[in-house]
């Protein structure tokens, strides 16, 4: 048996269990969605028929989809950089020997263990106009009352804040570990050369955190497109679709409107979008590995 043949045999044997499940629960359903997206939704009184790209044309003309799409970009643009920046700041802080370090570390991490579906109800209270916590605080400073979740201008920001709160502490753990893995000699060398703390962070720590940042970034991007639990609880996409995100819209079209073909077409669009992001990120990751 040649090495190649032997490798092929062992390789596929090792791969088989994972591949079977991947095909069964990812590729097949994705393909089925793609096929379904070219048909009309089957209703018992009107069976599905081939409609070509009609569902996609409907997406292009669907104002709710475009709003969900732009909302999602804003949501991603809000959560990803802010939660990563906060995570680094948190990690740098709790990495230093400051009083209350343990408390801070635990506090930052708590959102990770609290289920979003429950915590969203607590946030609902924070944002409630009149007697909600936020209002009690702003009211004490004499600021005017505001309906945070009920106004299109602030509702998306409010659910974005919840997402940031949920994620930052989780990412902090990875940065904390990475920071502590940086050899202390680097700090000594930098200080001998008279680098300021900011320079040390920018020129030494931050570049060394890059791999962690990429790891975290993948997570953050996935979450930006899948984290919709708080929307289900807090706004149900309202007011007037101001907080509708793409996955929430798919859920609504698929499981409220029962328009499975249109939901399938939306799914395909989301998959294509995510595929594009994955492709770009994979390119970056691969380059990093070669760079090393």
């Amino acid at each position: 048996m040649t090495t190649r043949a032997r490798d092929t045999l062992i390789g596929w044997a090792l791969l088989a269990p994972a591949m079977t499940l991947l095909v069964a629960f990812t590729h097949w359903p994705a393909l089925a969605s793609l096929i379904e997206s070219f048909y009309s939704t089957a209703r018992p009184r009107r069976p599905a028929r081939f409609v070509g790209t009609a569902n996609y044309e409907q997406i292009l003309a669907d104002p709710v989809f475009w709003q969900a799409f732009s909302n999602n970009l804003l949501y991603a643009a809000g959560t990803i950089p802010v939660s990563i920046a906060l995570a680094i700041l948190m990690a740098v802080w709790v990495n230093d020997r400051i009083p209350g370090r343990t408390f801070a570390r635990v506090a930052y991490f708590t959102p990770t263990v609290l289920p979003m579906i429950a915590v969203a109800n607590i946030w609902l209270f924070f944002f409630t106009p009149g007697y909600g916590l936020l209002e009690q605080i702003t009211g004490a400073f004499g600021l005017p009352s505001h309906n945070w979740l009920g106004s299109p201008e602030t509702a998306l920001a409010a659910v974005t804040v919840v997402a940031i709160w949920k994620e930052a502490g989780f990412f902090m753990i990875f940065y904390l570990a990475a920071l502590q893995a940086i050899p202390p000699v680097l700090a000594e060398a930098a200080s001998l050369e008279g680098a300021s703390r900011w320079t040390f962070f920018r020129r030494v720590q931050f570049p060394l955190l890059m791999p962690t940042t990429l790891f975290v970034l993948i997570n953050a991007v996935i979450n930006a497109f899948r984290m919709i639990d708080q929307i289900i609880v807090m706004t149900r996409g309202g007011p007037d679709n101001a907080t509708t995100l793409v996955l929430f819209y798919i859920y609504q079209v698929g499981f409220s409107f029962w328009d499975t073909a249109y939901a399938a077409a939306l799914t395909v669009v989301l998959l294509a979008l995510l595929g594009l992001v994955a492709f770009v990120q994979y390119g970056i990751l691969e380059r990093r590995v070669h760079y090393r």
Partner: protein
Amino acid sequence: MDRRHFIAGTGAALGLGLSRPAWAQAPTEVSFYFPVAVGGPITKIIDGYAADFSKENPSIKVTPTYAGTYQETIVKVLTAHKSGTPPTLSVLLSTDMFTMIDEDAVSPFDSFLKGPDDQAWLKGFYPAFMLNSQTEGKTWGIPFQRSTIVLYWNKDLFREAGLDPEKAPATWAEHLAFAEKLTKRDGAGNTTQWGTQIPSTGFAYWLLQAMAIQSGAILANQEGNRTAFDDPGALEALTYLVDLSRKHKVMAPGTIDWGTTPRDFFERKTAMMWTTTGNLTNVRNNAKFPFGVAILPANKRRGSPTGGGNFYLSKKAKPAEQEAAVKFVRWMTQPERAAKWSIDTGYVAISPAAYETAAMKDYAAAFPPAAVARDQLQYAAAELSTHENQRVTKALEDNIQAALNGSKAPDRALKDAQAEAERVLKPYR
């Protein structure tokens, strides 16, 4: 469905297939999904009902499953239907009737109701509740936890504002005038107490429909394939709603959350609220002040849509299971049980007979608000229900929210909602 059910179900099927030999004692399984809109302990009441029923009918085993909110329950029922094993019986919104018919997921009750006493039972429900339960001459749903919209008011705040604490507003003009008196602002111009509150998330279409009925508009036809969102009555309704908030400033700005509305009332943040009668027990337990419950104020007339849930029978269930389920439904809707259910939850008892039971009479005598929803039934109209119901109501709801937030004028909003509904409903004509 877990394996235990599966085996039992197979056993039952085999038993039937083999012309019921004597050894086939496996009881007929009735799986039953229900939503709970009223908090935890209610699931125990339902479990208790199922157990009592099975005790009286050993040949039938009812397995109730709490399936979440209404929305989650229909998701479960329809996903299960599409993949093969739906529950025999479920409680879903009465407005889901057309959706269930379109998905071919529901069996009408008629074929099980042949006898004269069956017909009498069917006639025993309040006619208002049957409006959302029958179409095409068939009965698709049996009323269970039904409701209408009522007005709750805080008697203490009425007294403080110099209003008669025992008198609720009877007309729109009075409602506005009361609300103006009840709205309190502090020195800085911040409102500390709102006059009234009509929620605009979750069920915005339902509350708007109440005002539309009061203005003489019928928002959808009985066939469920045509809407009239641009009716002048609907415009009058939306204008009134928007003006309460934006012009007269007696209602909080922006959209008002359905879920927090009762809490706003308990917190004395609002002096009046419009919400489901299903909230009655909740308000009774949590309001720390004397409160009143009234029929909604009138514009051209009084009026409220009905709401709430019906029993539905799965089309995919076996005939024996369906028959057992119908038996259970009849047992559940007996006057005593309907009365008990109404007392425990605040939902409207579904038949006049239930209000004639001793338990209900005692309860209503000790707690008069319990009878308000019933008294309103004479003015009640069918709840907005169409084919593709969720899509059509969402179109209306989005536009109500847009109008409340000022991004659309009321007439523009209603025209947009109507255009979307037309697009969706055209294939059903």
